[in-house]
């Protein structure tokens, strides 16, 4: 297989398959969760659920003092990684083109050198998170194979993107193909791993906030 064959494969059928699995899996998982439902709470409510639940979704994006104090490394690296990843994902112009072609929506991108710097920082944060997970006794105890594996897969998407952008691997179709392949791997494993937290975090926070809000506490 030549590099161009490879690129055609990953830009063509493999991408379609990965996208299908991703959408299928995410919807499957979300339906599995939502259909389970929760019992109607019969206790007399002290506060509303909806506003409190929605507030919690946003409140927990905010870094709090305690987390910064007790777990500064994973908290700060975590924020850098998430922010950086979404900047690279959503504001790199080739990505915007992809989103535009799939969904028909578009927005202004960032200059490539900025995305480039962000990608480097993000990769650094991921390496930091990986090392922290490996060396911190608490996280080491908690971590399963998946925890490390996902960090590697996410790192690969950034690293291959960086490599393709800078033409570090030649020929370029091979580099771009590897980037797409790593993204496809991410898409395929996404619904069946903890990457699902990307979506379920909203559900989880809402439920938490709603249940607390009902009792008159903003969680």
């Amino acid at each position, binding site marked *: 297989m030549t590099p161009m064959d490879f690129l055609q494969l990953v830009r063509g059928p493999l991408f379609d398959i990965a996208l299908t699995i991703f959408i299928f899996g995410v919807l499957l998982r979300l339906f599995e969760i939502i259909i389970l439902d929760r019992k109607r709470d019969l206790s007399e409510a002290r506060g509303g659920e909806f506003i409190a639940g929605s507030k919690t979704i946003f409140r927990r994006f905010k870094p709090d003092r305690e*987390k910064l104090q007790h777990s500064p490394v994973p908290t700060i690296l975590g924020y850098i990684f998430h922010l950086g990843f979404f900047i690279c994902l959503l504001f790199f112009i080739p990505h915007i083109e992809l989103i535009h072609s799939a969904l028909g929506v578009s927005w202004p991108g960032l200059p490539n050198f900025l995305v480039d710097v962000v990608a480097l920082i993000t990769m650094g944060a991921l390496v930091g998170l990986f090392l922290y997970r490996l060396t911190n006794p608490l996280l080491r105890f908690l971590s399963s194979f998946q925890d490390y594996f996902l960090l590697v897969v996410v790192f690969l998407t950034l690293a291959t993107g960086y490599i393709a952008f800078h033409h570090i691997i030649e020929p370029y179709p091979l580099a771009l193909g590897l980037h797409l392949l790593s993204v496809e791997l991410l898409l395929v494993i996404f619904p069946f791993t903890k990457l699902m937290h990307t979506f379920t975090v909203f559900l989880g926070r809402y*439920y938490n906030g709603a249940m607390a809000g009902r009792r008159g506490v903003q969680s």
Partner: protein
Amino acid sequence: MSTTSLQRGLEAWKEEMDAPLAAFFSSCVHCGICAEACLFYTETGDPKYTPIHKLEPLRRFWHQEFTLFGRLLKMVGLSKEITDAELAAWEPLVYDSCTLCGRCSQACPMGNDITYMIRKMREGFAASGHVPPGMVGAAGRAVRIGSPMGVKLSALQAQIGHIEQESGLKIPVDVQGADYMALLSSMEIMNFPEYLEALARIFEQAGVSWTLCSEAFEATNSGVQVGSKDIARELLQRVVDGAEKLGVKCVISPECGHAYYALRWEGPNLIGRTYTFQVLHILELLDQLRGEGRLKVEGQFEELLTFHDPCQIVRKGGVLAEPRNLLALISDNYVEMPDSREFNWCCGGGGGVSSNERAEALRLKVFARKKRQLDATQAETLVTACANCRLMLEEGLEEYGMELPVTGLTEMIAEKLASSSAEGRGERTEER
């Protein structure tokens, strides 16, 4: 089925499964932040006390039974089945080292309500027979005798006699049609009878129409702590029956956290219907009286006070402002703990840990967290609003050689009550 079994436990878990649980399990990324929020981890440094780790068997069960992918993995033999031995091994994590305090639920960046999950987890542990003996004992006494500490009606009557004799106040029992039915925790009956006297004084002054119920005076609910909604229901039903029989408008939870949570938030769901009466924590009622100007106090406490927020009343109960309003009434010399309100640290004895003798050493060890918090305030008196907390605090302070008096907020109010109680009564008459 006439006995507890793994099968029965797993069936109980199936019943407990719901969307929040599934969402929470799907969201956890093993960040470890809940560990830092849990005093069992911070004080021991042992990662097995990480809150979310305590749920590992339930997470696996959920994945195997309630996700398509998990079912497929199980079908091809790629996921480990839950065993009875595993539950036995997990029992200390689920009971001895979790007070259901809810601090981790506040901390989780994913919004996982881990306490909510542990509560559900315990249903399966109870149904499979993995409950610490101390807690089984308490539940047995609660069901058979009426109180987890084995306090009988006769004991209460004896205390009532003492109080009436000493204070000259009347403590109404079984008054049909009273507005309020007060409940007590057995700890208050046995260890802190001051509470009952304080109630009588305050209600006397404010002219509150109240009563105790001889058939339902115990507020605590061991069933909730054990994690059996059946036992919880059985115990709660007594209160509901008592209240409905007397036809009261409102049931007052005593200064006891779990009692309040069980009564206020779990109760209607346990019996499957809404109450015909309202439920208030005593602090809520006192604050209402204060707002209405019916709570008259004179004089203030001079010493530096601090308040320990009982988890079930404050963080999980929503009674946040009331204790502060009431404290402001009787003290200008008040200091908040470094982590307070929703972020307060548990006394270490909630969730049934206090009745679990096996957990005592661990409980006292992790009290170090509370000690540091208290040290930082340099308070001279520690006020709280939960008899269980109060007992745990006293034991902990003793263990760590700290001389710090612990008292209940209701008693403190009663102590500063304005002497002319006739005024209050007059107002009430006017209202009527």
